[in-house]
């Protein structure tokens, strides 16, 4: 976690000093997570065998996509289509073993299409909020979601997945801290695709390969949405009160997701 915090901190500071507002945090998030992942569980094999081994590679791949996206600003429909296809490809790799041992091709294709659509919707909502929210509340919300994800994954019977969740939490926490210390710059929307891919990868690994209940995974996936809706409807309000309100809203749904994971968790020995 320390490695993730140091790497993401350095890139987040550099991004702010160079005024790379639109994509500086995307680089900090992707490289911070990838670095933390490698230090925590070792270099992932290539080609990866396990679903989680894909995550650092996808974080870096999506970082480049996010940087290109913020620089080129393609039309909305093209952007949505490219993102949907990219998510489908990522999900096909993450859940490859389900095709081998569980799903028929049709069943698998339906799962991939539905999950990719879900990632697209989540990205669209987060992206819209990221454009409006120039405070630290946006990465703070993601930090709370990542923290809840880490605890829920640990309760789902996998300390390894929980550890990766805490790596992500450390990265978001560092971005919040840097945003707090250097408030003259704003978090960029580029953070959204990387955050969606890594968080989705962890939720899906927990649900499909550990014992994370479906309700917990769905609650974690949806937990940021009410808070971000507040961002969209709270322009011009008291910033501090708004920040507390958003953090509370997201913390309540994350706490519920963790409680459900706790109830379903396998007992420790």
């Amino acid at each position, binding site marked *: 976690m320390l490695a993730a915090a140091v790497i993401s901190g350095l890139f987040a500071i550099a991004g702010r000093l160079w005024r790379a507002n639109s994509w500086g945090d995307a680089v900090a998030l992707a490289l911070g997570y990838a670095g933390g992942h490698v230090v925590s569980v070792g270099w992932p094999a290539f080609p990866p065998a396990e*679903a989680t081994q894909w995550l650092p590679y996808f974080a870096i791949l999506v970082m480049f996509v996010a940087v290109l996206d913020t620089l080129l600003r393609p039309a909305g429909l093209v952007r949505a289509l490219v993102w949907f296809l990219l998510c489908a490809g990522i999900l096909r790799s993450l859940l490859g073993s389900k095709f081998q041992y569980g799903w028929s091709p049709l069943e698998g294709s339906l799962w991939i299409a539905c999950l990719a659509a879900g990632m697209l919707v989540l990205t669209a909502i987060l992206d819209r909020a990221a454009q409006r929210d120039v405070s630290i509340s946006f990465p703070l919300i993601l930090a709370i979601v990542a923290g809840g994800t880490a605890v829920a994954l640990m309760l789902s019977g996998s300390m390894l997945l929980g550890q990766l969740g805490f790596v992500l939490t450390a990265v978001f926490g560092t971005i919040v801290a840097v945003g707090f210390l250097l408030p003259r710059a704003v978090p960029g929307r580029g953070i959204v695709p990387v955050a969606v891919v890594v968080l989705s990868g962890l939720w899906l690994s927990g649900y499909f*390969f550990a*014992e994370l209940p479906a309700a917990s995974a769905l609650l974690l996936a949806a937990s940021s949405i009410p808070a971000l809706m507040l961002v969209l409807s709270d322009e011009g309000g008291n910033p501090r009160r708004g920040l507390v309100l958003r953090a509370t809203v997201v913390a309540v749904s994350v706490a519920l997701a963790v409680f459900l994971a706790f109830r379903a968790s396998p007992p420790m020995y």
Partner: protein
Amino acid sequence: MKPPKFILAIILSSLGVTVYADTFKLDPVHSSVIFSIRHLGITNFYGRFNDVSGTVVFDKADPSKSSVEVTVPVESVDTNNEKRDQHLKSPDFFNAKQFPMIIFKSKTVEASGDSYKVTGELTLHGVTKPLTLEIKKGAEAKGMEGEIRGGGETRLTIKRSDFGMNFMQGPLGDDVTVYLSMEGVKQ
């Protein structure tokens, strides 16, 4: 007039057809897969897999025509502690939902004194690595229903890190010793 059997055998053998090979289907009730691993550097603890299946084709006359295929479902892991078994099946160790089977498939078999050197590939935790087993052949005998039974056993040591199982390195050793004892029914 029918040709003598040995002439038929020579003809088939020259065509690459295995003539004298016997096929044994593994009997999970009398086959065992046991493993041991160092805990906290103190001593070994043992676990087993309660299910094993596979086929051994054994050609005594020409061992190179023999083959061994063994499949072990990860779900059958048993360490005499249900909670620990669940943890072993999680993504921290075997990741049973993602990689439900441990499979060994031989590529070559050669006689080596009293034993047979079986070289093949072991697929564990989604990683496939070459592996050579020194299988000591057991006896053949008739079972309770008159069926012919045969078998063999081997002991091998693998490094779990070679198969991407790196969690808790230190508290748990890297070397895993596996004892595989196979008894099969001749088909």
